[in-house]
């Protein structure tokens, strides 16, 4: 295993220290329990937004803390949900009097830990709403299973809810917008290589030199099918098809198209994917009015990409466009 780290044990805290050193104007870090909050937390008189999850998906979530997006983020160990005490302390630190929205990616561990944290916050008299993001069309959904994973739509939900909270909407309203993003957003990913979890020291799965995993999550968990490497255009089709048909998106819809890198994929390749994804969207009569291209929800150094599509309306577009000032996403200020 080759990584620019000192030790797997200290990795998360050292990265937090680095973030704090680099972005002290935007964020503050708290250790033991570990969490990151915006520099001016608690921002009074607005809904506070808290997310979190295992580390290894950077810039998600810590890189999205700041004005116009998250108020706080709790990093767990690599690929491991953070614990309720982190979320509880972070929730208290960011609460500005209008309640706390928890944005939770749909993984059993995350859901259970956030549930416990929500109970603790509520016991302190803090109003809490929880929204679970489950946008990954690669996973067959059913009420009898853990359901779909939360992936790319999380980034969009954090940005859009951040805009809504900054605009002064109520907890219930911001939570409803979050649910809407989840309802109208779909994602699917592919891996070209595995990633290596630092404390494991070897790749999570073995992928022969000429094979790819379709329907990969963001934890190096195997996907649904393995196949021979295909040209980028073909891969893009295989990602876009299940997304477009799932809701289904229909001709005339206005959408946001997000092409995400998994951590080890050069931007050059992401643009090749974006080119084809936008063409497919267009061929379906969709109007791509907003987009995002880059590595925003990653899986350590995994090579691969995921595509997320979100149906936009005036409200979602407005809060997507709203100013944001975080380490990883910034515009309008």
């Amino acid at each position: 295993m080759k990584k620019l780290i000192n030790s797997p044990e200290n990795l998360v805290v050292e990265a937090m220290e680095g973030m704090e050193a680099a972005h002290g104007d935007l964020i503050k870090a708290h250790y033991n329990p570990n969490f990151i909050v915006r520099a001016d937390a608690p921002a009074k008189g607005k809904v506070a937004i808290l997310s979190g999850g295992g580390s290894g998906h950077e810039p998600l979530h810590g890189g999205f803390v700041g004005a116009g997006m998250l108020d706080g983020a709790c990093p767990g160990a690599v690929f491991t949900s953070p614990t309720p005490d982190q979320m509880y302390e972070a929730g208290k630190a960011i609460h500005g009097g209008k309640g706390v929205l928890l944005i939770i990616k749909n993984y059993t561990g995350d859901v259970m830990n956030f549930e416990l944290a929500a109970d603790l916050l509520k016991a302190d008299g803090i109003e809490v709403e929880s929204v679970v993001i489950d946008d990954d069309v690669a996973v067959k959904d059913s009420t009898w299973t853990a359901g779909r994973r939360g992936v790319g739509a999380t980034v969009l939900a954090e940005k859009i809810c951040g805009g809504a909270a900054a605009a002064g909407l109520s907890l219930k309203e911001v939570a409803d917008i979050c649910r809407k993003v989840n309802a109208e957003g779909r994602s699917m990913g592919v891996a070209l290589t595995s990633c290596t979890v630092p404390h494991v020291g070897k790749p999570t799965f073995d992928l022969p030199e000429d094979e790819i995993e379709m329907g990969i999550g963001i934890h190096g968990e195997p996907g649904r099918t393995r196949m021979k490497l295909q040209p980028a255009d073909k891969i893009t089709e295989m990602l876009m098809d299940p997304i477009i048909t799932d809701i289904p998106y229909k001709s005339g819809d206005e959408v946001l198209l997000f092409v995400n890198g998994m951590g080890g994929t050069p931007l050059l390749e992401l643009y090749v994917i974006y080119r084809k994804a936008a063409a497919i969207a267009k061929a379906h009569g969709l109007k791509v009015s907003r987009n995002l291209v880059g590595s925003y929800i990653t899986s350590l150094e995994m090579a691969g990409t995921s595509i997320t599509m979100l149906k936009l309306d005036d409200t979602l577009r407005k809060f997507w466009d709203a100013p944001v000032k975080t380490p990883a996403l910034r515009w309008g200020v």
Partner: protein
Amino acid sequence: MKELSSSAIVSWLQLLARIYEEKKDYLTGLDAAIGDADHGANMARGFAAVAAKAPQFEGKDIGFIFKTSAMTLLSTVGGASGPLYGSFFLQAAGKSNGKTSLTAADLGACLEAGVAALTARGKAVFGDKTMMDVWLPVLDAYKASAADGDLVAALTKASEVAKTAAAATIPLVAKKGRASYLGERSAGHLDPGAESSSLLIEALLTIARQ
């Protein structure tokens, strides 16, 4: 008839810390196959933190020990197994408050409350390919065999059942937890949480036998 003293419980928790440290790569390997390669690290980290609390357990009742362990697991394990094992110990604490030793019946009450907590938290049923596939038959076996009050005999039976039950998760298709994302591809692999649960029972038997 044998009882489990406070200090036996502490020994058990310390033994678990050693076992999960030793089996860290093994459990993580199981999780790599159908999950995200952290179960061993999660368990080792959590129980190391519990064992580090041993000095505070000195002279305390089992309810306190379980509650402290529960809070420690909740705040150090993370993932799915943290809230599950944490809730297990939290509810077991409710049945052992003030007690400085557990009879076979007391332990049965703890297990019953703990397993109920697992069900409440995880909402998994038997056959979903989770740790419940171990805990549900273990509880039944323990209760059936502890009726005559022999704690060691009941744990012996429970431990046997645990091993079989863990192995029985291999052919299953996961319905809950991270392995469920794999669908059919989850079949053919041992569930990591089932295995860590089986190790937990086995360790308790080891301590009870001492």
